[in-house]
C-alpha cells in the first residue's frame, strides 16, 4: 500500500466539538418520491447512529433504500419530487430542514461521498487535479496554486504514482482503479469527518477492491473519519465494517456488530443474504441458493413484515402475524432485528438449516 503522508489536523468544523450524542444520528427517517404512478416509499422509518472513527456497513439488495438514505444525509435529493421527514443530526446540527447554503458548506467539507462508478462520477471535461482542487478552493479558501499542491498531495496519498504528472490528466486517461482512487482523493480533500462510500468497489476487480478498502481503512485510522459503506457485498462488510445494518424495503431489518451479523444473524433476510454468497470451498456443482422472489414494490409495500412474501418461515408465526403486524426494532439498542419468529425457534432454524449452508459458519 502507499506510504501515507500525515497532513496537518483538519480545521475545526463549525460547532466543534460535538456536545453530546453520536456524531451522525438518523431518527425515524422517511424519504418519499412523488412519481406518476404514486408515492414511492424509498425509506420508511429508519434510525441509526454512527460514531467518529467507526464504520457502518449498510447491506441490502438493490432498491432497499441504501443509497437513498445516504443521499438524504447529504441533502442531494431533488426537493421538487422528494419528501424527507425525520431527523438527521450531524455533529449536533440538524440537516433535514437545513438551507441549501448550509448544506453546500457542509458537503465536501464535513461530509463527503464516494460514488460507485468513477467513470461517470468524474466529469470527463476537467482534469482530475482540477476536480480534486475545486472543493478545497471553495471550502478552505485556498488559492489555485495551493489547491493544486493539495491535489497532488492527495493523489500521492491515495497511491497514484507520479502524482505531479498525473494531476493534469483527464479521468479517461486513468485506469478504473486509479479513477476510484482519484475519486476518494476528491472526497477526502477537505478531511471530512463523515465519508459515505456508495458501493466504492463494485466496479473494480478483486485485487484493486482490496487495495481501495485498505486505503479507506488507513485514512480512517489517520483522521478518525466516520465511514458509511453501502454495499451488497458481505465480503466488503466483513473486511471493513464495525457495525452492520441490513436494510430491506426502506427499513432496517437487523443491526448489530459485524461479528453478530455474520456469525449469528437473527433475521431470515440476513440468512438469505449470507446463504446466497458463493463460497470457494463449496463443490462447484452445488447450486447457489438465492433468496426466492424479488424485492417488493415500494409503491405498494406488502402489509406487515415487508419480507413475509419471500420468507420461508412466515407460516411458523402464529395467527398470520407476519402478514398483518409490522415487526418493530428496538430503538436504542445496538443489536436488534425486526422479526416475529420466537427466539428459540430461530436458534433451531439457524443451527439446523442455515449454518450448514454457510459451510459450518467458517467465516
Amino acid at each position, binding site marked *: 500500500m502507499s506510504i501515507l503522508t500525515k497532513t496537518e489536523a483538519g480545521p475545526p468544523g463549525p460547532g466543534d466539538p460535538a456536545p453530546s450524542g453520536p456524531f451522525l444520528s438518523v431518527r425515524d427517517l422517511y424519504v418519499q418520491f412523488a412519481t406518476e404512478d404514486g408515492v414511492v416509499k424509498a425509506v420508511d422509518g429508519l434510525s441509526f447512529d454512527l460514531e467518529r472513527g467507526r464504520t457502518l456497513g449498510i447491506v441490502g439488495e438493490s432498491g432497499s433504500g441504501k443509497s437513498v438514505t445516504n443521499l438524504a444525509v*447529504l441533502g*442531494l435529493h431533488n426537493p*421538487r419530487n422528494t419528501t424527507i421527514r425525520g431527523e438527521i443530526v450531524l455533529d449536533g446540527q440538524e440537516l433535514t430542514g437545513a438551507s*441549501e447554503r448550509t448544506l*453546500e*458548506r*457542509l*458537503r*465536501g*467539507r464535513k461530509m*463527503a*461521498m464516494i*460514488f460507485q*462508478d468513477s467513470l*461517470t*462520477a*468524474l*466529469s*470527463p*471535461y*476537467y482534469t482530475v487535479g482540477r*476536480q480534486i482542487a*475545486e*472543493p478545497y478552493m*471553495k*471550502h478552505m479558501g485556498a488559492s489555485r496554486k495551493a489547491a493544486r499542491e493539495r491535489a497532488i498531495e492527495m493523489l500521492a496519498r491515495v497511491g497514484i504514482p507520479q502524482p505531479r504528472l498525473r494531476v493534469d490528466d*483527464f479521468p*479517461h*486517461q486513468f485506469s478504473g482503479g486509479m479513477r476510484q482512487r482519484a*475519486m476518494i482523493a*476528491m*472526497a477526502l*480533500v477537505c478531511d471530512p469527518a463523515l465519508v459515505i462510500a456508495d458501493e466504492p468497489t463494485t466496479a473494480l476487480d478483486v485485487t484493486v477492491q482490496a487495495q481501495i478498502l485498505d486505503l479507506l481503512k488507513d485514512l480512517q485510522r489517520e483522521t478518525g473519519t466516520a465511514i458509511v459503506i453501502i454495499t451488497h457485498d458481505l465480503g466488503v462488510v466483513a473486511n471493513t465494517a464495525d457495525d452492520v445494518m441490513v436494510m430491506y424495503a426502506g427499513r432496517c431489518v437487523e443491526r448489530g456488530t459485524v461479528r453478530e451479523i455474520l456469525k449469528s444473524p437473527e433475521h431470515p433476510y440476513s440468512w438469505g443474504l449470507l446463504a446466497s454468497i458463493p463460497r470457494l470451498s463449496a463443490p462447484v456443482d452445488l447450486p447457489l441458493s438465492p433468496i426466492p422472489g424479488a424485492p417488493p414494490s415500494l409503491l405498494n409495500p406488502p402489509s406487515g413484515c415487508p419480507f413475509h412474501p419471500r420468507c420461508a418461515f412466515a407460516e411458523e408465526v402464529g395467527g398470520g402475524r407476519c402478514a398483518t403486524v409490522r415487526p418493530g426494532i428496538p430503538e436504542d439498542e445496538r443489536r436488534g432485528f425486526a422479526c416475529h419468529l420466537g427466539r428459540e425457534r430461530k436458534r433451531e432454524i439457524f443451527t439446523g438449516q442455515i449454518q450448514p449452508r454457510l459451510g459450518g459458519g467458517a467465516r
Partner: protein
Amino acid sequence: MLRFLVRRVLGALVILLLISAITYFLFFFLPSDPALLSCGKNCSPQNVALIRKNLGLDLPIWTQYWHFMVGIFAGRDMPIGHCPAPCFGYSFADQQLVWDTIADRYPTTLSLAIGGATVFLCVGVGLGLVSAWQQGRAFDRIASGVSLVGNSVQIYFLGPIAIGLFASSWHVLDRGHDPDWSHDPWGSVQGLILPCMVLSVIFWSNYSRQTRSLMVEQMSEDHIRAARAKGMSSRYVFLRYALRGAAASIITIFGIDLSAVLGGAIITEVTFGLHGLGLLSVQAVLRSDLPLEMAVMLIGATIIVVCNIVVDAAYALIDPRIRLS
C-alpha cells in the same frame, strides 16, 4: 491538433474538388445551350459558333474544366479579356467578371448569416439555459410554447409581418438594406437588425429546445451529483459542468445547421429585397450561367467546409476525450 487540422484541410480540398467537378459536368447534362441563350432572337448559326468559341464551349469538357479550375488559382486570359487570380471567368449572361459580381453580393449574405447565427445562438442557447434552470416553472412552459410556435413559422411569412410592424407601423427598426461595411458600418448594422431577427427565429426556437433538453439530461448525470456532493453550488455545477457537456452537443448541431443557415440567409434576403446571393444564384441557373453557378457553389461550399473544420476543432477543445484520439 495540427495533424488533425492538416488531415481535415486535405479532406476539405478533396470534397471541394468533387463538388466543383460534379457541378461542372452536371451543367452539360442540362438541355439548354448558353450560347443560344445569349445569342438572342435573331441568331445565325455563325453567331452561335462565334459565341461558343468566345465562351470556350467548343473545347472538350475536360479541358474546359481544367482551364476553369486553374483559372481560380492562377487567373487566365480569355477571349473576352484577362481575368485576374480568383478567376471564375466572365458571366455567360452579362459578360461581367464573375468575381466582381460575387464580391459585390457575398457580403450581404454572409453578414446576414453571421448576424443571424449570432442572434440565434445567443437567444436560443440563453433561453434554453434559463428554461432548464427553471425547469417545470412558468418561464420554462412559456418558453417551450413560444419555441414551438417559432419553430413552425417560415421566414417568408414572418418577414413581411416584421417589416409591417417594426418598420412601417412603429418605425423602430430599419426595414433592411444591403450592408456597406467600409463606408457605413453603423448603418449596415441597423439595416441588418430586422432581417437577422427574422432569420434567427426559426433557428433559436430549435436551439432553445435542444439546449434545454441537453441541460436537463446533463443535470441528471452522475458527475453532476458528485460535484454537488463535494459542495459545489448548483449554479456553479449548472454552468461549469452541465453546460460544458451540453456545449459539445450544441456545437455539433450547429455544425450540421451551417448550410441551413446559409440557405436561410438567402431566403431572408429575398424576403427583404436585399441584394445577396439569393436572386443571383437563381438567375445563374435559369440563364445557364455556368461560371456564376460554379462561383456561387464553390464559395458557399468552401465556407461551409471551413466552418465545419472550425466546429470540429472547437468540439475537440471542449471534449478532451476527442482531443487525443
